[in-house]
């Protein structure tokens, strides 16, 4: 039995959001996607705390509050720090990978160019997290 996840997707690129949504749709999955276009927006959503997401998919390169800055704030919060966060990025920079793991992440996924391959990777991530036991609010 797989869980239906509530996923906070943080990405400023509209097409990237479309890619996630299209993947979930074409795979016929029942996960709920909450969209945030930058870190600030995401914090706003999270600040309500009434319905926290099961998983956060985070892009690194964003205007205003970037991915790493957002992650830092998240991990300083007593409650929010327990939400598993998976990085979804095109950056192969060693420094970025290192920084993220240091702050605390649940995964670092490099986005491939080809959509087919992207779909493949995202499918694996979602499948993995949907079989995980999660902290329910």
């Amino acid at each position, binding site marked *: 039995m797989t869980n239906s996840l509530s996923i906070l997707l943080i990405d400023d*690129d509209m*097409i*990237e959001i*479309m*890619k996630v949504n*299209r993947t979930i749709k074409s795979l016929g999955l029942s996960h709920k996607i909450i969209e945030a276009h930058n870190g600030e927006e995401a914090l706003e959503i999270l600040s309500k705390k009434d319905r926290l997401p099961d998983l956060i998919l985070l892009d690194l*390169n964003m205007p205003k509050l970037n991915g790493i800055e957002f992650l830092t704030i998240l991990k300083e919060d007593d409650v929010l720090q327990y939400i598993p966060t998976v990085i979804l*990025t*095109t*950056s*192969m*920079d*060693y420094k*970025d990978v290192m920084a993220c793991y240091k702050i605390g992440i649940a995964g670092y996924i490099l*986005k491939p*160019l*080809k*959509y*087919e391959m*992207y779909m493949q990777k995202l499918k694996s991530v979602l499948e993995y997290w949907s079989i995980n036991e999660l902290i329910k609010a």
Partner: protein
Amino acid sequence: MELSKTELLERTLAKEKAAREQAEKTLNEKTSTFTHLSQELQKENTRLKNLLDKKALELKGVFSTILDAHIVMDIEGNVLKMNHAATKLLGYTLKDKPFNLLQLLAEEYRDYTFEAFGDLYKTGAYKNYQAVIITKNKERKRIQVNASLIYDHEGKPIAAQGIARDITRETQMKALLEEQKKQLNIIVENSPIGIALSDRKSKGLLLVNKAFCTMLEYEHDELKSLQIKDFTHPDDMAATVVKMQEIQKGEIDHFFLEKRYFTKSGKIIWAKTSVTAVREDSGEIKYQIATIEDITPQKKASNALEESNNRLSTLILNLQSGILLEDENGKIVLTNKQFCKQFGLEENSNALIGYDFAALAKKLIDKFENNQNIISRVETIISEKKRVLGEEIELKDGKILERNFIPIFQEDSYKGHLWSYEDITLKKKYKENLQAQKEKYSRMITNMNLGLVELDTEEVVLFANQSFCDITGYSLDELQGKKARDFLVTDPTYQSPSTRLTGSWELKITTKNKKQKYLLVTRTENYDVNKNLIGYIGITLDITVQKNLELQKESLLKNLEKQNEQLNEYAHIVSHDLKSPLHSISALISWTKEDFSEHMKKESLVNLELIEGKVEKMNLLIENILKYSSIDKDNIQNAPIDLNSLVEDALGMIFIPENIQVSVLNTLPIINADATRIQQLFQNLLSNAVNHIEQPKGLVEIDYIEKENHFLFSIQDNGIGIKKEYYKKIFTIFNSLGNNEKSTGIGLSIVKKVVDLYEGDIWLESEVGKGTTFFFTLKK
């Protein structure tokens, strides 16, 4: 002398005594004969009467021949008859009136005389009666009397007769003699000089005094059986014997000898010995008198003196200074080897003794440099008789001597003088050398570019050279006596260790005209000759220019580092920003194909695929540029890598068509390097090899040889080959040869960069149409 006189006297006395005794004896004999005859005559009266007359006549003759006084007296002592000598002795004559002998006796002799008379009556004779009488002239005379009784016919004593002799003088003489003998004994006994008497007959010493016993440590009696030669030291025996023989032969009567004796305890004493022979008239030795005087201390002292004299002469003879001693007449008394050597004299130093100095000086004159004044100077010195020290004289052979003149006075009277010469050539040269060195270093210090400053222990400036003044802008006057650090060092935080006194450090100072300067300071302790710290010496080098350059370089480097970092960041941002749209395009095309494939013409679909290919190539290009830019020394993490598994991993990343066979010919080594970079290296070379094979049967071979300092790898393919003109070009960035879709022209640039990183080389051998072999080395 005293002795012989006494002896003479004694001898005379003895002779007199003997003659008198003879006379007395004769008289007594005659008297007794007479007495006897007279007894005979009592019996034969007549005949005897005649005989008596005759005898009486005879007696008269005897009396007259006696020189001594002869007195006949009756039993009461009244004088009956006396001769001329008696008259002379007593001063009385029978003509005056009869007198009694007893009345003449001195009071104290009365009792003794009565006893003597008693004896006379009993025995008929009395000898050696001595008494003092008082003569008519009131003289006290000592007389000696020998008396006998005269008997009558019936044997009754009727008278006494006696011969008296005046012994007053004799007694006095005897007493005197006794006294003298006693005195002589005292002298002999108490003499500090040992005296021994021996004669020819007895073997031992007849007489020795106390001093003699003490000196030789023998008891008085022990010496009676010993002779002088028994104590004589064997070394002195011969000399003693010679002298003794001379005495024996009568050649000499007396000799002196300083000789050694053994005492009883075996000690050796030196004694001045005098032996005198006392001879008989015949010339034969009667006595030998030996006197000995202990001179051991003097002898020791004189030996010591002689030894010290010898030492002194040896010392002078071998002294390193030339010595010449003259007496007051200018005659050489003493000189030494060194003097002869200094002046090149071939004579032995002893040969010069007695030589005239003036003559010697003339002979030596040619040896002196500038010799015009030498003689006159010497004459002046000698005539002034004053001490002259440390005069330098130069010899023609280059030697420099220091001459001292010391006049010698003994109790204010001039006794000569001493010249001494010391060779100071070396000393002098050394001094000159030292001076030259000193000047050399002074010039160097003055002219060198380094500032030199001398400080006392309180860091107060004692001296600074011109360079130091030039550097700081202060004059020597302004620096001296001040603690220069206080006003020179305006930035004490800059490297200047105020607690450290020696060593090297940099200083930031402000000059007099307010200019900032940097100095490199080296400071050491300064000690005086007794190793006491007296301060410090600082050497300063103006490093302002270098320091400014250094600071400039530092800031440039910092800038560069920052820029590099920014550039790296920039590359990542750019790549991300470039990749994002590509990803979007790629996704959109993919969706378009998916959503509209049924409605599109075949050409349109091909075009969409072409777009996808270009997008893919662009993405690869961006990724490779990023890889290339991230290869640098600061970004590598070296660890041991097993190349066998690494190559296997690399091959796994490459798509290898089935017609191509890739083989590793040798077991690859384990190297210490960054795994990611090395994998990139192999991956790029292998994919190049695989991608450029057009043969139906492709072959890629990896080989390896270990060299002394590096690993040599080769990757060989049977691909299309590379023209020689491109051998170099292919390693520069963005130079792709083939029309391969996937070729970005960066792959080999990355390879070259990694090889460079590990100080290796890369080259290739190729033949167009046959294949290519890439060789590369990695440093061990």
